[in-house]
């Protein structure tokens, strides 16, 4: 065909459950079919256009992209709006925003006014026609014709579709009539939902999911053929008159708007009048130098600062730094602890702007990691705030810039394996219980057999048609977007109304709005976002600093601690893996690595944090690193260039940045290509995008003289890194917090544990585990008491009766009581007499309800008043006293004398507060001789390496990291501490019942010692949970 064609009506899979192709597939196919242009017109959305734009750039396609959207006003009017220019685009964004903001999340409500207000966009009207045989439709079309013509006598077309359905001829005639009656030109359009006809089954499946039915019952909702795909120009020429096809080109040529025109304009109010952004930034840096470097700076530092500032200027990023500076200054003024991280954060400029607290002199090695021109990535700064106070920062942003100018980035929630199995299975009519069974039993981490094989093992008949369809459709639907959600904290702030840049819609959270693009889209367009994240550890540190100030009269900041230089006492604690509560390195996997890695400096911690990640572990980088570190393996480099990249990690790539850099120096990737590689890594599970780089990487390395084996290994490492690769820039910031928390744990443990307990939920451990760890460190923990406790846990002076010394202790607070509100606690404390309550009746007169008093009784907080919680509850429950007449009378009902056993107490403690300061279950069980022979945790140190031991404990942790090759880590807690048990897959399989269900477990196994860290390698697992039942007739969990 000689003529040209532009497809003006095409929906991607961002028209959720309608479009059956990715935007990328659509543009590639349209280009292959030699289309002049393709409009992506998702329904009331531009969420898919950036994907199309990026794909066109990546694949260097000649295809022109038109931005547009489909709108349904009601059941009788549908129009497409296309953007000829930037103003039309702003208009479109405004309309989408208005329509979306009127409706709840995921829906939209267009008004007539929206359509009449279009002054720049091109309208293509899609008449209903009379194919459904009703006259009411054609009269509706007639009315809309009058209305549309009245408001848009220009820039209006009739979009004629031909899908080879039964009444095409009549429909075309109908459109021709409308065209003549109203003098509206006709253009052809395809109503495309698929890039190729083979997507029809998937489209049918999506439709069935949308109508919550099965494909074979979806009947009238299903397309009857695959004509709503991108069709060849030859085919189109047969279906449409040539002037209709020519019209598409006329329209397309009017659409000159390109997404690259979008310029992000930072809010101008950040800059004092009369100053330039760069000038103001320089000014702030000079001020910062005075505070950060009171003794002045040397030439090297000065040179680095100059270089950084020059780069910021060249790349035109000063606003970005100023915006973040403004936000952190707010936090600082409010006393909210924060810390920046990310590639750009580790710069001296950021240190001077007080965005970070990492003294760059200490981490000079990181400075090369600043944003660079050639790498073509946008600057990356995430700022973490105290998790309990992040909302204040968010509100500050909304208040400062207004809701029109600030919104959160979206996160696209896509089909993943489980949701795909569930939805596709339902659409094909597979029973839900069977789908549940599949989902529960398929182990996606099983490397030996893929899910398709496993599902056959689980009873899906591999030969049957439905199984083949099921497997194919699940594979196809995975990674299809399902809905938009809000990003954890990525803000987009602009100088003008945001809705002229990108549509804004409602999020599920009240008063939150999200834009229609996610972070990749923003990156693709070079738009910057500011990440406002929440971090529990910052809350804990902040609380700890206040306690240290109160009880030790010492004012601390994170920077103060890091400035003290590496403290051997702190590192020796870390090397013993005594890290419960320490940021990032408290998990079981981290703990088991600590004695091997033996961190002794700040940079060791940076490595420690990044190395115990799925990326390096799957890429098999841990063992080579350890060997080289211990001097058991020579450190060699294939070239000087590689040495420069890898020398700081002994030749083993550990950080994501190193892998990217390797691709550049060793395989000759350009900055742009390296950036693509970085993104492909982030989502490499998706469409095998990473494999596209394989040939280029390996060839590139071989051309540069690296041997094939080395090249292959690097590629494998990249694959292993996948989405789990950890950037050094983030690790560096985390290491600061890890060190600060470890330092506090070592020097001010009482304050540290109190702060952690008051910041829960966060981190890895429960209150119970933290309290036990604290007690093992010799800290006195006092129970919750009606007359001594506050709502929060507090540090208090305590006179130890045995030693007659005054020490600091932790008094547990009422926040630990499940279901007890902070409001009740405050009321109670406000009304508490200075000498405390003297009896329960007095307590009942305080304005808190019976339920709350009962909760206090259950937590044994009334012990001081009534002996035990059972009798306390008995007297609280009497409703008679509530009546005013009886109020003065004494309680004459029979006193109830139940004296709880230790086991009762234990159960109650766990039920009310999830922890017990009383007898440990293991002590109890042992006193009744129910456990047989075993060794306690504290006695394990006396046992020899490789000796046979039996241990018993409450199962408090069970982790099977995907990286540990079938190993499960059990944490058993006995009355002296935590025991680490390693269970191999084979052992687990042979003793499934105990492995899966035991709450109290006895393990016979081999003791392994590595430095001071002890593991028990399980041989036999014995489930002793049933022994608990012997303690009571009531079968209750104590968890």
């Amino acid at each position: 065909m000689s003529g040209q064609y532009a497809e003006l009506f095409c929906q991607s899979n961002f028209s959720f459950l309608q479009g059956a192709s990715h935007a990328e597939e659509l543009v590639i196919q349209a280009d292959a079919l030699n289309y002049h242009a393709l409009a992506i017109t998702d329904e009331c959305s531009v969420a898919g256009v950036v994907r199309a734009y990026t794909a066109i750039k990546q694949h260097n396609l000649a295809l022109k992209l038109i931005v547009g959207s489909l709108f349904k006003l009601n059941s009788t009017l549908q129009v497409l709006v296309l953007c000829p220019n930037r103003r039309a685009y702003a208009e479109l964004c405004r309309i989408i925003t208005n329509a979306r903001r009127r409706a709840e999340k995921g829906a939209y409500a267009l008004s007539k006014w929206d359509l009449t207000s279009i002054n720049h966009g091109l309208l293509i009207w899609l008449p209903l026609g009379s194919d459904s045989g009703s006259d009411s439709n054609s009269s509706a079309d007639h009315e809309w014709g009058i209305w549309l013509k009245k408001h848009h006598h220009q820039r209006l077309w009739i979009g004629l579709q031909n899908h080879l359905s039964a009444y095409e001829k009549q429909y075309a005639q109908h459109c021709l009539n409308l065209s003549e009656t109203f003098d509206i030109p006709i253009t052809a359009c395809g109503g495309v939902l698929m890039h190729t006809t083979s997507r029809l089954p998937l489209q049918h499946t999506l439709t069935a999911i949308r109508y919550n039915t099965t494909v074979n019952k979806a009947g009238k909702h299903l397309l009857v053929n695959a004509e709503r795909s991108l069709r060849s120009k030859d085919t189109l020429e047969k279906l449409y008159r040539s002037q209709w096809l020519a019209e598409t080109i006329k329209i397309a040529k009017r659409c000159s708007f390109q997404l690259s025109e979008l310029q992000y304009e930072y809010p101008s109010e950040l800059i004092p009048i009369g100053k330039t952004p760069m000038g103001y930034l320089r000014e702030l840096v000079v001020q910062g130098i005075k505070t950060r470097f009171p003794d002045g700076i040397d030439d090297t530092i000065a040179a680095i600062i100059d270089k950084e500032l020059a780069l910021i200027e060249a790349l035109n990023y000063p606003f970005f730094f100023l915006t973040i500076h403004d936000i952190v200054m707010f936090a600082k003024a409010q006393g909210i602890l924060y810390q920046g991280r990310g590639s750009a954060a580790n710069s001296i400029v950021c240190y001077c702007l007080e965005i970070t607290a990492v003294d760059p002199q200490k981490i000079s090695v990181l400075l090369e990691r600043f944003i660079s021109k050639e790498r073509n990535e946008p600057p990356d700064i995430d700022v973490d705030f105290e998790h309990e106070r992040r909302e204040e920062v968010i509100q500050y942003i909304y208040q400062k810039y207004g809701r029109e100018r600030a919104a959160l980035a979206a996160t696209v929630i896509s089909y993943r394996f489980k949701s795909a199995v569930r939805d596709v299975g339902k659409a094909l009519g597979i029973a839900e219980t069977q789908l549940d069974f599949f989902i529960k039993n398929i182990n996606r981490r099983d490397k030996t057999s893929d899910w398709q094989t496993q599902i056959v093992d689980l009873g899906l008949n591999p030969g049957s048609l439905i199984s083949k369809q099921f497997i194919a459709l699940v594979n196809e639907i995975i990674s299809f977007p399902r809905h938009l959600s809000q990003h954890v904290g990525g803000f987009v702030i602009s100088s003008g109304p945001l809705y002229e840049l990108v549509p804004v819609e409602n999020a599920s959270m009240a008063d939150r709005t999200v834009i229609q693009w996610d972070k990749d889209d923003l990156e693709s367009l070079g738009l910057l976002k500011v990440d406002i994240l929440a971090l529990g550890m910052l809350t804990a540190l902040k609380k700890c600093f206040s306690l240290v100030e109160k009880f030790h009269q010492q004012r601390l900041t994170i920077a103060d601690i890091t400035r003290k230089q590496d403290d051997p006492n702190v590192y020796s604690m870390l090397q013993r893996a005594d890290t419960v509560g320490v940021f990032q390195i408290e998990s079981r996997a981290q703990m088991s690595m600590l004695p091997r890695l033996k961190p002794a400096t700040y940079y060791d911690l940076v490595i420690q944090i990044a190395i115990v990640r799925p990326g390096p572990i799957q890429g098999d980088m841990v063992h080579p690193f350890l060997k080289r570190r211990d001097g058991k393996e020579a450190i060699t480099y294939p070239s000087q260039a590689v040495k420069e990249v890898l020398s700081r990690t002994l030749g083993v790539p550990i950080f994501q940045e190193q892998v990217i850099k390797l691709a550049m120096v060793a395989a000759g990737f350009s900055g742009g290509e390296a950036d693509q590689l970085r993104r492909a890594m982030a989502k490499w599970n998706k469409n095998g995008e990473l494999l596209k780089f394989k040939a280029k990487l390996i060839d590139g390395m071989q051309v540069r003289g690296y041997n094939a084996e080395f090249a292959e290994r690097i590629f494998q490492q990249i694959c292993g890194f996948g989405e789990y690769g950890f950037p050094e820039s983030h690790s560096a910031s985390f290491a600061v917090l890890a060190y600060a928390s470890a330092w506090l744990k070592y020097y001010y443990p009482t304050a540290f544990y109190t702060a952690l307990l008051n910041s829960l939920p966060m981190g890895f451990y429960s209150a119970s585990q933290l309290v036990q760890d604290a007690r093992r460190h010799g800290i006195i923990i006092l129970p919750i008491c009606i007359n001594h406790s506050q709502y929060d846990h507090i540090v208090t002076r305590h006179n130890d009766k045995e030693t007659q010394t005054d020490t600091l202790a932790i008094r547990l607070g009422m926040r630990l009581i499940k279901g007890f509100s902070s409001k009740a606690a405050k009321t109670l404390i406000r009304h508490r007499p200075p000498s405390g309550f003297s009896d329960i009746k007095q307590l009942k007169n305080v304005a808190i309800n019976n339920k709350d008093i009962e909760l206090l009784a259950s937590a044994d907080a009334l012990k001081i008043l009534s002996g035990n919680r059972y009798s306390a509850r008995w007297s609280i429950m009497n409703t008679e006293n509530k009546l005013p007449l009886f109020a003065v009378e004494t309680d004459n009902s029979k006193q109830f004398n139940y004296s709880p056993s230790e086991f009762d107490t234990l159960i109650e403690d766990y039920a009310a507060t999830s922890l017990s300061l009383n007898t440990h279950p293991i002590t109890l069980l042992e006193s009744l001789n129910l456990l047989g022979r075993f060794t306690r945790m504290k006695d394990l140190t006396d046992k020899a390496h490789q000796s046979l031991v039996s241990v018993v404990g409450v199962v408090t942790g069970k982790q099977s990291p995907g990286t540990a090759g079938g190993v499960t880590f059990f944490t058993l807690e006995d009355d002296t501490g935590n025991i680490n048990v390693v269970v191999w897959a084979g052992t687990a399989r042979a003793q499934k019942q105990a492995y899966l269900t035991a709450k109290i477990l006895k393990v016979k196994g081999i003791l392994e010692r590595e430095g001071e860290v002890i593991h028990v390698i399980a041989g036999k697992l014995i489930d002793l949970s049933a022994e608990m039942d012997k303690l009571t007739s009531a079968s209750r969990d104590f968890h």
Partner: protein
Amino acid sequence: MTLWLYLHFPALQLDSLYATHEQHALVIVDGHKNTIVQHNQTAHKHGIKNGMGLGTAASLCHDLQVHPYKIAIEKEKLAETAHWLYSVTADISLFEPNGILLKVSNMLSLYKNLEHYWQTLHSHLSLLALKYNFATGYSPLAARLLAKVGVNQIISNQENLVEHLHQQSLCHTELSVATIEKLRRVGITTISALLNITLTDLAKRFDLELVNYVGRLTGQLKHPLNFYRPSEAFKHRLELLFEIDNLQWLAKPLSILLTKLEYFLKKRNLITHEITLLLHQRDHGDLELTIHSAQGEYQSQKWLTLSQLTVESIKLLAPVQSITLLVKHSMPLNPLVEDLFSTAKGVYSPEELVSVLQAKLGKQAVQGMHLTEDPRPERSTEICLPLSHTSYCQHQAYKLRPSLLLPRPQRLTEQVAIMQGPERLATGWWDGNPMARDYFIAQTPNGRWLWIYRTAEKQWFLHGIFS
């Protein structure tokens, strides 16, 4: 005081499955809580317990058979069981879904003594092959509690019974979880501790539920009961352990039902002329078979033979998951004597007309037809039971379709002029019968209007003729 006997059936649904062997681990799962509520011996050997999550159970045993818990099955089974017991004992009260209470005192005058009564009951019940626990007590709730904990004792000694009762934990009672928890939290966990408190003291602290319960348990308060009355109709349902798609295998389970029927009829001295068999098909409606016997019959063997004849000619739409046997009338029906043409036409209601036609021509000869939503012409209409589909499928009705669709498309052999089209149909992948055709409306030189299509291979077929 009245003595009561309670029978508790802990695995009623499991027991009512058609299970002759225990090869497979089998569990009944409560879909809401996703926990195991019943399991068989084989499952038990794998370490599966009631209350366990399905996920855990599935990982303990890979070829686990899972059936969803259906309270309706248990209720039905319970009613059947009560019916069964009705021949040996009189006052039966149902405690749905899985308990039966019997009033013993009244029966003792019929039987020699308690032991004899129990023996009769026990041997009668054992024919049903159900698992059950039992106990006696001097109040319905006491008997129920003791049965549920499984004391399995038939005694009438009041002291012993009270002693047993006192030992029981509150968690087996009918009290709400919240009340049990509330009691536990003041240290009351057993019946004896509970009965130790005066009702006045309890009433000050607890709601009426508890006071009522204690009163009924001790017999101080009357426990209102509804007693079972047998119905005259016979209806039994049998859940099959395996789905059956070959009707040859239906004989065995069917004979179980027919034996029950025989017992039912024999007891009442009845015969029936017609039995109805409902085959419950997976994802399809029930298939209803009516089997006649001109002279009337009660023997299971005879009915089995008759059924097999009927069953042989049946085609299943989907595997059968369970079967129900129904007998609506145990009296002979009056045959229809009127002549089709003797009475004035048009006075029949549609239902009457259908039944008359069926009587004259045989059931198979009278069928209905309805439109489906399937876009494929061959499947756009479906034969159905007469008058069973009255809904009008609007969507299909709009399409221009020929009134005569050939049962099988024929090669187009004559020259025709295409008048309209194409209408492309390319769909139907989901059931293995995909099609890709372009349909046209064409006219022959002699003026007939045809519905023809072209395949992807450019072959032409005639598919229908317009009237």
